[in-house]
């Protein structure tokens, strides 16, 4: 290895460049002054040097011990000279420098992200949620109830005995499905203040289930359907979905901010929203499964839920005719799975 490389040498004390030559012999790199330069030649061991990564237009700077450095005059000559030193490049640099490697990395990245999204993050979120004391859920739930009481809900107009009857039936159903003991829950009746809320049920963090009068009145002859809906909400309570969603949303937000750095929060929020909606659909499926388990334990056929969805469909049609339904976004971005999918699920459960 006798060829020398012409470089610019900086001693680390002055900004004046000095012409120099690099020689590599064995395990030693020698920096010698070109003719006319005053500094004394010196040698450093080759092994600990961190050579700059190969890039298309960037400069090549090699940092030497004690703050000195050398810089390439001619990048192509530098790369050729470093290559013949026989020091292999890391796979990272090689992958960065050709499109086939990048395509492979892109595929791996998508697979890893998908796996993380599908299994990794829910697993972590379950662990984190388990570590959060239930007190926190209750605290958040109380605040949420207070705020929706002020904006979306009004006191229930159902008779006290009707409320008690539903509460008792639901308690028996939970007891039948979980004789070993179930997480605490509380059933609250409210009337929807906004017509668009309509027949609805909400599971808040901490075990509070809010049921609207409109839902109870939707199928007056079939209280079992209401129990099916309550079973679904109980699924959210038992699996602490609200808390898990919170953890998952903040984890996704953090991941997106790492990937996209500081280029506008607007762009970062879209993937967070989509991922959260995806998790929310999974949570609804889990809650439907819990609903079926509770109904079976109480001897109710899951078929009542099929009737319930049909009733909801009729209610929506009426709303639409009245011009109240302005839900134009469609199901692609909805937080619940499509009704058809859920109806099929309950029909199948009824057939088993």
């Amino acid at each position: 290895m006798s060829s020398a490389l012409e470089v610019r040498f900086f001693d680390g004390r002055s900004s004046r460049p000095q012409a120099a030559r690099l020689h590599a012999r064995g395990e030693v790199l020698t920096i010698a002054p070109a003719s006319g330069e005053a500094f004394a030649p010196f040698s450093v061991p080759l092994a600990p040097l961190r050579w700059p990564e190969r890039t298309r237009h960037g400069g090549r700077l090699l940092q030497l011990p004690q703050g000195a450095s050398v810089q390439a005059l001619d990048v192509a000559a530098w790369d050729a000279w470093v290559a013949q030193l026989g020091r292999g490049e890391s796979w990272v640099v090689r992958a960065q420098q050709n499109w086939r490697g990048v395509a492979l990395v892109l595929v791996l990245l998508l697979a890893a992200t998908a796996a993380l999204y599908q299994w990794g993050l829910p697993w972590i979120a379950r662990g984190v949620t388990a570590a959060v004391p239930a007190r926190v859920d209750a605290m958040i739930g109380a605040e949420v109830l207070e705020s929706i009481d002020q904006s979306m809900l009004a006191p229930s107009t159902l008779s006290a005995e009707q409320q008690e009857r539903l509460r008792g039936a639901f308690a028996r159903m939970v007891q039948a499905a979980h004789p070993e003991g179930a997480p605490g829950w509380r059933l609250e009746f409210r009337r929807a203040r906004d017509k668009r809320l309509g027949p609805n049920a909400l599971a808040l963090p901490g075990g509070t289930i809010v049921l609207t009068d409109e839902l109870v009145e939707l199928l007056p002859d079939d209280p079992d359907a209401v129990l099916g809906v309550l079973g679904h909400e109980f699924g959210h309570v038992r699996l602490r979905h609200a808390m898990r969603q919170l953890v998952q949303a903040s984890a996704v937000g953090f991941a997106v901010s790492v990937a996209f750095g500081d280029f506008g929060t607007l762009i970062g929020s879209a993937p967070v929203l989509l991922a959260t909606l995806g998790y929310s659909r999974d949570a609804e499926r889990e809650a439907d499964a819990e609903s079926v388990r509770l109904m079976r334990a109480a001897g109710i056929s899951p078929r009542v839920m099929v009737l319930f969805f049909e009733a909801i469909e009729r209610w929506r049609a009426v709303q639409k005719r009245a011009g109240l339904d302005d839900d134009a976004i469609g199901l692609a971005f909805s937080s619940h799975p499509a009704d058809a999918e859920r109806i099929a699920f309950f029909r199948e459960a009824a057939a088993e």
Partner: protein
Amino acid sequence: MVTEASADTAPERHPIEFTASGSEYFRIWIVNLLLIVLTLGIYLPWAKVRKLKYFYSNTWVGGDALDFHGEPAKMLRGTLIAAAFLVVYSVGSNFSGWAALLAALAFVALWPALFRAAMRFRLANTSWRGLRFHFAGDTAGAYACMLPPLALALLPVALAGAMAGVPVDGKPPALSAVATGMVGLGMLAFVAGLPYFLWRVRRYQHDNYAIGPLQTQLRADLGVLYGIFIKLIGISFAAFALMLLATGLFAFTGRKTGVGASFVIVAALMGFGAILLVNILPKSYLQVRLQNLLWSTTGNELMRFDSRLKFGSYLALQCRNYLLIFLTLGLYWPFAVVNTRRAQIEAIELQTRIGLDQLSQAAGREDPGATGDMAADLFGLDIGL
């Protein structure tokens, strides 16, 4: 203060070039992302060093590239400390009003120190022609310029939250008039003082950049900065009014013609127009005017900068960036970063009255810790380098 050197010697002009390419940064970015995902974030400092080394070795000042010297293994410790702090902070602020207040206090107390540490780390690990840069700002200066705005912005909210969290005689806790007034006053003072606070922070930064014996100074006029902000408010209002008008017209015609395919296309275009008006336009305006003002007034008697970023072309660039990021579902992002950086960096010119060969620095080198720099990254603090 020393006056300008004799005006008859024209300064030497050195353009600043940025030669990074979007496609190359895309490849670096993808590989970095894969490694970050596979290592669950442990790779962050390595990714950061690779990115900074790429950007710096493609930034040419007077024909010589910059270099970044941070060592990832050392920065990992900083990352872990910063991440632990972030977790404690975000979990703590979810617990209760008082915990949130404590978290806010800790945040306010630490932020300026972190900021200074980040500046010191970044500059001490940046070199040009073998000379390391240096950040000369002291801790007291950081607290003096950052504590007032941080306290004004965060403390009233946290205090009100803590007070509202305590139920009074079993009644539902309501925000007392005192708390509401306090939050309102704090916000008002914060907004009115925003340009002043920004000017203080930027002055702290630009007064303390140093290489060799040269230290810069910021001579930007506070009045000009207020002018920029007033114009910014005017632009935002005009944009908002325009958007309302367009939306109204659109809703009116939509009701008449019904929903068709062309309607959807128009709606998508309107959506982009709205983003342009309320987000891209004011943001680009502020970025361009701030950069030009701050960098054109930074320097000393031997060297100074001159920044001439053009608003029109910068705005067009940002519109294209946002549109392409959206259309490619984010894959255009590295191209957008490189484009934006090129526009910003190449608008700046260095003017010197001293030969570029004549700088020298005494031996002895500082080695500040990386915690501040990594914390700045994790908390989304932009130190503007």
